[in-house]
């Protein structure tokens, strides 16, 4: 067994540990996307998919732009895979202000393409989503640059920093989606 293979297995084990630790039920609440389309959060956005979930709000000027940068570049790197192999979902922490129209404007300014869904909804529904991932109700002012990578097909769930090079996420997603794995340990710097 090569050293690289060992490293890959070690990385997988590490991720598996994280998956067990972070596993939680994702609610199937009613939400709405940036086009005004009603959706069920779990069955329409997560079920049987590999998905990257992040939290933001359109008026945020502190840590959200950093995570937006991450997702914009990940969207580019995913190319045609976006919406097929991997989906991106950004959930508003400010649902009272972030109407579908506000999300659409934010999406336009950030070049959001199909396969990257911006989500808002009734506060209690959004709270259930944010509680499932972060343990908190939706509210601005939480200074964590954190994103979640979920493979609903396997149940794997990785809580990761939201400020890493694009290649880091691509490698993780390749491994999680099982199709294009690299035999290297994810590195951040």
């Amino acid at each position, binding site marked *: 067994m090569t050293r690289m293979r060992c490293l890959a297995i070690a990385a997988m084990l590490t991720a598996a540990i994280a998956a067990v*630790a972070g596993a939680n039920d994702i609610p199937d609440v009613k939400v709405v996307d940036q086009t005004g389309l009603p959706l069920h959060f779990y069955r329409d956005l997560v079920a049987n998919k590999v998905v990257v979930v992040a939290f933001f709000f359109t008026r945020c*000027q502190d840590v959200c732009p950093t995570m937006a*940068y991450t997702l914009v570049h990940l969207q580019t790197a995913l190319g045609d895979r976006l919406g097929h192999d991997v989906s991106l979902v950004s959930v508003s922490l400010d649902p009272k202000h972030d109407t579908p129209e506000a999300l659409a404007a934010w999406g336009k300014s950030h070049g959001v393409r199909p396969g990257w869904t911006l989500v808002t909804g009734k506060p209690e529904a959004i709270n259930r989503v944010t509680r499932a991932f*972060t343990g908190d109700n939706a509210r*601005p002012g*939480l200074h*964590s640059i954190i994103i979640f990578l979920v493979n609903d097909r396997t149940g794997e769930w990785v809580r990761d920093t939201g*400020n890493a090079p694009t290649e880091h996420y691509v490698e993780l997603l390749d491994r999680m989606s099982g199709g294009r794995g690299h035999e290297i340990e994810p590195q*951040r*710097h």
Partner: protein
Amino acid sequence: MRISRFVVLLLMCAAVLSAQAPPGGEKSVAGEWSAVHKWPFVAIHAALLPNGHIVGWARKDGVTEIETYTGDPKTGVFTKVLNPYVQVFCAGQTFLPDGTLLVAGGHDKFDGWGAIQTTLFDYRTNKWTKSANMNAGRWYPTTSPLSNGDVVVVSGLMPPHDRPEGSNGVNGLPQVWSKGTWRDLTGAYNPFIELYPWLLLAPDGTVFMAGPAPNSSSLNTAGQGAWTNGKTTKSGRVRDYGSAVMYEPGKVLIVGGSDPPLKSAETFDLNKSGAEWELTGSMTFARRQMNATILADGTVLATGGTSGRGFNNTNTPVHEAELWDPATGKWTTLAKAAVPRLYHSIALLLPDATVLNAGGGLPPWGVPPPGPNYEAGPFYADAQIFSPPYLFRGARPTITSAPASVKYGETFNIVTPDAANIAKVSFVRPGAVTHAFDESQRFIPVVPTVSDGKVTVTAPDRDTIAPPGPYMLFILSRAGVPSVAKFVTIGR
């Protein structure tokens, strides 16, 4: 007859309990918390000054200046000192060789709007002065002292109006402050750095980044600078709002953090080539938003934090302190604090070998930021002092005199009436703490020689082990009881 039997039984129980009680009583096992002292501010940042006082501050929004407070943390009597140059909330902070506190960046009115300024607090005059501006703003940067007395600053968010087009907002260009000017480390540009990274000066002179991300790395600050990838932690988890310390030269402990919060802790030995992260004992309580403080004997005290899910779960505070012993890798649960110390709380080792635990919370902060109002939450303008168990294990040795300054590798005498009973001597660099990480503290044991009623020690011989500056010098008895420290400056 029945009553007599009952009394005998009671006496027997009392005798058994008495026989099991440790010398020095329960406090010698669990330590003791003081009463809660009201303070005039919420200590979100705090640093121990070389005169035994602290300087600390809270937060304000919408302004470019802030009131800071300096004074004796034992009395809670503080002098208000305005920093007129910058709002230093969410800055990085560490000490220069002369004991001046360097504060890099801060809060340019609002969250995420990193300030570009560098300010210096001089404990001799109780005044703030301004130093050179950095290359751009930094909100949530970390500083680290370097072996030559310079300071490196890494990371931090730039203000939105200064972020270059296409930037992720992170100031990815580390800088070294030297004699009042900043030098860019252009070879170490990395915008994918975490906010408030855990930086620790390593024995080889590089700066080790121990987290919070699971991939550690090292920054060489020589020349244009360069990052080198390091090892991945055993947990593989992002330990955000956990903590890290260098508990012995080159030996690193990371503990807690993440969400759900972790109980686990890991060590890394920078002295060994090919070292890997290793799991050490786990705490009894999972903690996030905690503090880790190196004590006078080299053990590490975990205080505060929350064990529940979420960014700052105020429903699940951990009141118990826990003590990690590097010799055994085990944690011992200690006495319970009265006040929750979570997000924005601080802890500092004080010269009398007690630990200051203060602040925490989300105070209302004046002018609302643009966009949605950030909700205030419980906040604590108060403090408690923790007396660790070692203070209840016998008589305290005293230092009659020691040099005010020593050179690297210099052998010097410590005058004490307790020389015959001295087993250990340590240097502890004063802390400068915020957001669950102390950017200054470090522990350096030295071996004492006792003869003719004198304790003789040799100062650390390497500036990478002990960056120049003030240190608390402790002597410890054979029972492990520390003296009150004397401040000694180590330099060239």
